[in-house]
């Protein structure tokens, strides 16, 4: 609805009620007035017909005996009827015989010749009604009479009718308005209360609110249903909260249990690794002693076997060290500090360059990567990642290593990219597992603990790791640092130096 003031339920109800009443009244008014008008006209015509007949009969003798004066005297009797404006009496040859006019100026409404048509002929024209009748004598026409009557009776009645209707309409609408306003309180009151309650529930999440109103009609049923719904919601919400609380409690319990068993497991792993070291050292020491002291008594096959034993013990030692490292990383306390990853990466690249001189490696380090975290652990992360990159680009003539910052779905991610051996994305989920290796020991030596360590450290900082790459196309390892990484970022990416050696 586009009616003004109809934006509320109350306004709409009011408008509908008033409009329907007004329409009903108008229809009734038009019908009654129209009927009145028709009936009035009909009555007027009938009365006029009788009058015309009487006048005609009274004027018969005057016509027969050719006495216009007498006819005019007869016609003048019509002065008693104020509605008759003019009368014309016409002789058989259609000429004007006698006339009567109520007031000067009415003559012109009388035709000079008798109107055509022998029978009764009437028609309403302008503000008057004409009716003519033929006067018969012994069955033969001897003249005709024409009466012109005022229609003001009809128009007056219609005007009065319309006035009365307008008054009644106004009065009825006023009464209807008053009744409506009273009645509507009973209807719109509960609806408004319902709307207010609904608003309260949706905005304030106050499920304890209840709509008022308890009439026995549909609105009452609506209010009741609404309140029942609210009750249901309130109940379910309470249940939900209980369930939630219970769940949280269980999660806390499980977490505590898990932490305990985790600690126990780590302690076990640490002690096992630690305890394994002593026998391993003695195997290695005695093997070396055997190789040195009894070299002359051993043939080549024996020496080779011993060398293999020694190599294995060295490798096992490395494995144990890795495990211990991993365990330490897991157990170590994180000391939060501001760390400049960019300079850290630069240092590590320099160390690697000094350790293995003669390789051509282009290193690009983005500047200004400042983060919050544990300096020692973050150094381990970069050492592992850059070290891996250094290692897997060994076969490249133009090796390239890049440390950079990227925006990954709203969070700051750091990455180390190389153009080395790369990996098959099919195995990307195995990349960060402990002791998982995608390359042969002979090709690229290692114990498969580096990325596992990186992931643990990153996880402990609240971040995550992932990798992209392809075989022989290089690899990119990403990591975020949760909250710690946020204040880092590209303060000045352009400041990143481009180092080449």
């Amino acid at each position: 609805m586009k009616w003004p003031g109809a934006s509320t339920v109350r306004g709409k109800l009011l408008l509908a009620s008033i409009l329907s009443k007004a329409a009903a009244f108008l229809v009734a008014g038009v019908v009654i007035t129209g009927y009145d008008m028709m009936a009035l006209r009909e009555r007027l015509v009938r009365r006029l017909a009788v009058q015309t007949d009487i006048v005609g009969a009274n004027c018969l003798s005057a016509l027969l005996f050719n006495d216009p004066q007498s006819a005019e005297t007869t016609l003048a009797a019509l002065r008693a009827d104020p509605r008759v404006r003019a009368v014309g009496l016409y002789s058989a040859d259609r000429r004007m015989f006698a006339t009567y006019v109520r007031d000067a100026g009415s003559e012109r409404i009388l035709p000079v010749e008798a109107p055509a048509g022998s029978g009764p002929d009437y028609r309403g024209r302008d503000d008057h009604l004409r009716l003519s009748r033929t006067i018969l004598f012994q069955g033969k026409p001897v003249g005709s009479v024409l009466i012109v009557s005022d229609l003001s009776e009809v128009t007056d009645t219609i005007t009065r009718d319309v006035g009365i209707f307008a008054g009644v309409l106004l009065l009825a609408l006023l009464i209807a308005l008053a009744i409506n306003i009273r009645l509507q309180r009973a209807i719109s009151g509960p609806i408004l209360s319902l709307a207010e309650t609904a608003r309260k529930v949706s905005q304030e999440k106050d499920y304890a609110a209840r709509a008022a109103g308890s009439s026995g009609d549909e609105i009452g049923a609506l209010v009741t249903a609404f309140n029942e719904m609210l009750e249901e919601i309130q109940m379910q919400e309470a249940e939900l909260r209980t369930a939630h609380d219970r769940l949280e409690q269980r999660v806390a319990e499980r977490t505590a249990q898990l932490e305990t068993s985790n600690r126990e497991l780590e302690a076990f792993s640490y002690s096992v690794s630690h305890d394994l070291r002593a026998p391993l050292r003695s195997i290695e020491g005695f093997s070396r002693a055997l190789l040195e002291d009894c070299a002359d008594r051993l043939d080549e096959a024996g020496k080779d076997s011993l060398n293999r034993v020694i190599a294995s013990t060295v490798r096992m030692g490395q494995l144990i060290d890795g495990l211990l490292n991993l365990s330490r990383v897991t157990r170590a306390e994180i000391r939060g500090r501001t760390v400049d990853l960019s300079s850290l990466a630069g240092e590590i690249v320099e160390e690697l360059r000094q350790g293995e001189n003669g390789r051509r490696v282009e290193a690009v380090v983005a500047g200004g990567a400042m983060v919050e975290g544990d300096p020692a652990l973050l150094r381990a992360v970069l050492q592992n990642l850059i070290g891996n990159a250094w290692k897997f680009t060994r076969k490249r003539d133009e090796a390239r290593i890049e440390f950079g910052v990227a925006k990954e779905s709203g969070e700051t991610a750091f990455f180390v990219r190389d153009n080395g051996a790369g990996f098959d994305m099919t195995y990307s989920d195995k990349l960060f597992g402990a002791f998982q290796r995608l390359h042969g020991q002979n090709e690229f030596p290692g114990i498969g603990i580096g990325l596992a360590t990186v992931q643990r450290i990153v996880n402990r900082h609240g971040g995550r790791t992932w990798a992209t790459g392809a075989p022989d196309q290089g690899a990119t390892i990403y990591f975020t640092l949760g909250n710690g990484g946020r204040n880092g970022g590209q303060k000045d990416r352009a400041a990143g130096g481009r180092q080449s050696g």
Partner: protein
Amino acid sequence: MVAGARRFRPALLLLAVTALLAAGGPARGEEGAPGSLSDYQVKAAYLYYFTTFVDWPPEAFERTGNELVVGVLGEDPFGEILDATLRGKSVNNRALVVRRFANIKDARDSHILFISASEQDRIPSILKALDGAAVLTVADVDGFATRGGQIAFHTIDRKVRFDINVAAVERSRIKISAQLMKLGRIVRAGREGV
């Protein structure tokens, strides 16, 4: 004396016959075109009209076989005109017939009796003879109504008009309708000279 155009009146005293012929000339005044209707045509029509505005007592028709008799006493000034006017006409299912009388004794069974100007000297005796009879006496003799006749034609402004002696009408038990009454000049004189 013949009622006719007033201009002929001096001549009428000498030439009654000429006057009768002249009456066929313009007589209906401003309404009629010259020569359209003679005075006697009008009078004949009036006699016919009278039959419709006059009521006779029922016994007046007992001896006429339910015919309505229009009689002319004395010399007939109408000629064929009256017969032509009334031929085939009837009023209230009574056929109109024209009878001509020379003697008043024969004329008592008439309903309307036109007394010719030729009888004007005998009018008192004629009226006396008709006393008590339901006969409407009509004449175009001056002073007929005031002398006891019922209806007297006269001419005003070239129009044929008539006087009605109401007392004489009442005595004859004839009823003249108000419509006819209002057209005639009412004369209240009694039976003068009777």
